[in-house]
């Protein structure tokens, strides 16, 4: 038990550096090159789709949203918590001009999939 306690404390202790910049939850993202353009995947399990907003500006694409805890049972108590419930904002840069591209997003299986098809093929 003693060991467990120490381990927990260690895990929870934030390094000083972590405290410098409060790293608001950033959903992990994958970016693929496809024959037609680009495919962007973001893991955002538990995020209500209606809170998600995708916005493009020049070469950057920004995904905002907020994860709130929707799975609650009356009278439960939290025993441990690692999932971050908060608003997030993720910005990525792509080597194409997104203003002149078609951007579609759909939410499936806890993933947000964004397909980007440029109007003009970029080298």
């Amino acid at each position, binding site marked *: 038990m003693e060991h467990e*306690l120490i381990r927990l404390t260690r895990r929870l202790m934030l390094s000083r550096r972590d*405290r410098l910049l409060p790293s608001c939850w950033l959903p992990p993202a994958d970016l693929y090159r496809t024959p037609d353009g680009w495919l962007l995947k973001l893991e955002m399990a538990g995020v209500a789709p209606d809170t998600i907003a995708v916005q493009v500006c020049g070469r950057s694409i920004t995904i905002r949203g907020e994860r709130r805890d929707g799975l609650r049972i009356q009278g439960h108590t939290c025993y441990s918590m690692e999932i971050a419930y*908060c608003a997030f904002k993720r910005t990525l840069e792509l080597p194409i001009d997104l203003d002149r591209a078609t951007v579609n997003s759909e939410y499936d299986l806890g993933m947000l999939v964004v397909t980007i098809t440029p109007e003009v093929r970029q080298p």
Partner: protein
Amino acid sequence: MNEDTEEKLYVLPVFPLRRSVLFPMIAGPFAAGRKVSIEALEAAASSEDKTLITATQKDASIDSPDADDLHRFATRGVVRRLARSEETLEVIIEGLERVRIQSVDWEDDRLIAHAIPAPVVMEPGPESEALKREVVSLIREFQVLLPQLGQLDVDEFLHRLRDPMHLVYLLGALLELDFEKSQRLLDASEQNQAMKLLLEYMRSEYEILKLRREIAGEAESEAGREQRNYMLRQQLKAIQKELGETQGGETATQELRERLEQAEVPDAVREEAERELGRLEGIPPASPEHGVIRNRLELILELPWIRRTEDNLDLARARQVLDDDHYDLAEIKERILEQLAVLRLNPEAKAPILCFVGPPGVGKTSLGQSIARALGREFERFSLGGLRDEAELRGHRRTYVGAMPGRIIQAMRRAGSANPLLMLDEIDKLGQDFRGDPASALLEILDPAQNYEFRDNYLDLPFDLSRVLFITTANTLETVPGPLLDRMEVLHLSGYSDEEKLEIARRYILERQRIQAGLTKDQFRVPEETILRVIRHYTREAGVRELERRIGRLARKIALRIAEERKIPDTIAPELLRELLGRERFRPEEARKEMPPGVATGLAWTPTGGEVLYVEAILLPEEGKLTLTGQLGDVMKESAQAAQNWVLSHAARLKISHPRAGLHIHVPAGAIPKDGPSAGVTMATAIASVYSDRPVRGGTAMTGEITLSGLVLPVGGVKEKILAARRTGLRRVILPRGNEKDLDDLPESVREEMEVMLADRIDDVLRMAIPELLPEGESAPPAESSEQEPRAGQAASAPSVPRQHGDSKNADSPGTQLSRR
């Protein structure tokens, strides 16, 4: 604080903080143990957005705070992580925005607050810009001192922090301000006010940090080195262990401890040794202190505190050993046997402290060795010659690098028994200067009343020297300080006569050198005449060292011939010496053939034996002048004046024709300093001879001190003087009657050969030395010696003349001395 919506009202659980403040936009770890805290966290964790309000208590000691106990300005935060252990919840909460609590109420066990957002008022403008820059420059200064800040790229960082308050809160958290200051920072509702507050805190923190650095820097460099050495030593130990070289400190101290358990030491010493062992165990073996303590412990363990050797008290055997090793020296052997007898009757008797005085090579040191052998004691010797530093004898204090115990303790350690025979050679050649006076240290060592508690500076424990038989040796007693001399029993060894040397050579030297050269008895046969020739023509010394070397050389020459397979003589005849040893080194000194009036023959004593010296006197044309030359000392000059005045006062009787003539006395050789009173009679004779113009009888030497009333006082070194006279071919010697007893020291052969005449008064001397100067039987002042002058031959029982002139007092002082170059 992103959206500036209309007045929001939050109703959230309150997580009361005791000694910390959560700033907006900053995450921090917290632990909750109180019921109210756990309730708040659980409520937050169960909510949809996981938010709560952290409010700092005004008084940290309160367990269940009410509205009034909480600061009004607080932070809305979100629980980012939560973990549970036994009693407590550990959480990381990220501050979201600054809020103002409007009311706080208890709901069951929960503290619920109503709060509204309270964003800090932004005041863009030159002032806020100036403040910001000041903060940045302070950050850079901090960066020098705080390494964890050093990695931070300040410019990039500032660029990313759009909100200036983010910077303020971040620094507030980083500085680890105490919670009161932090709360004040949170209370600040305007940007510039907050900035100013932050600057103030930063400056004071900076000063504190700088001071701490200075203090720590000093302590750290010391501690750091220690730490490093320790680490290295541990590694070394591990390496040694790996290599199987495990003779590390522990085994060594273990071994010392075992030795201590077995050692025979007094209780006080054991206690001290235990104490030292304890200290030793606490010190790493590589430290210099370790070596110092260990050396001392080893010394303590090796010293013979109690261990003694059993004395061999068999008198017959002791006598046999002494006789085997040394020829004659009857007086000293007798003294040793006396001591043996005493020890037999009283085993606890204090050991005497003896001092052997005599010329070099007469066997003082080897006598010590054979005494040790006769007694069955351990023998140790060291020389004090040239010793100047008292610490050499008594040791250095252990505080000095390379400190060692003194020679005495070292000798005891070598001897390994508490009652060895310790020989201190050349005690007359002790140095003495500003570094100390070793003679004074010897005073303690050589005093049986004090030396049972001799304390060496290095050993620093009382050591009992009272069982040690000390024997010191000296060539002369002149330079031995009085108090030191007083502690010792002086035994004189005089020089050897030719006959004695012959005997020594026959008994000891020949045999020793023959064996040394690997010759058989048949190969090395040396007849007596040859030995005598070596003694007379190849050596001139009081002892037998040179003689031994010469005979050794002789043996080696024979060995060489055998090795070269040349023919060797059956016996070494005296004629062969020239071939074997080269030409004769010394011709026997011959007495002066010509003895014009004014020349008289005297005898002198030197530390290496006796010498013949001449006193020459001539008359000068000027009146009454006395000139003295020949490097004469004060005593000798005075003695010359006394002699002249005595002669002149008896001018009439001595039939002196020119009593007013000046006088010059010279004593060759002119370059050798001479001093002492024993040439008095020689001077008087020379002066009487020159004034009366009658020559001194040839072949007559004389010695003795004179007084103005005409008495002749005894002098020392008689044996050496007579031997010197004999060597020179003088056959008549005039001695003070007070020295009659010394004639016993002379070998029989010498006594037979020499004509010794004893004198009470100068008149007697003159009558013996200058024939026809004074009529026989006539004595100057009629009162005293009424007897006519006896021609006292071989110490024949002389008529009883009163011998009141302190013979014992003067007998030991050597009279006229020559200092040899």
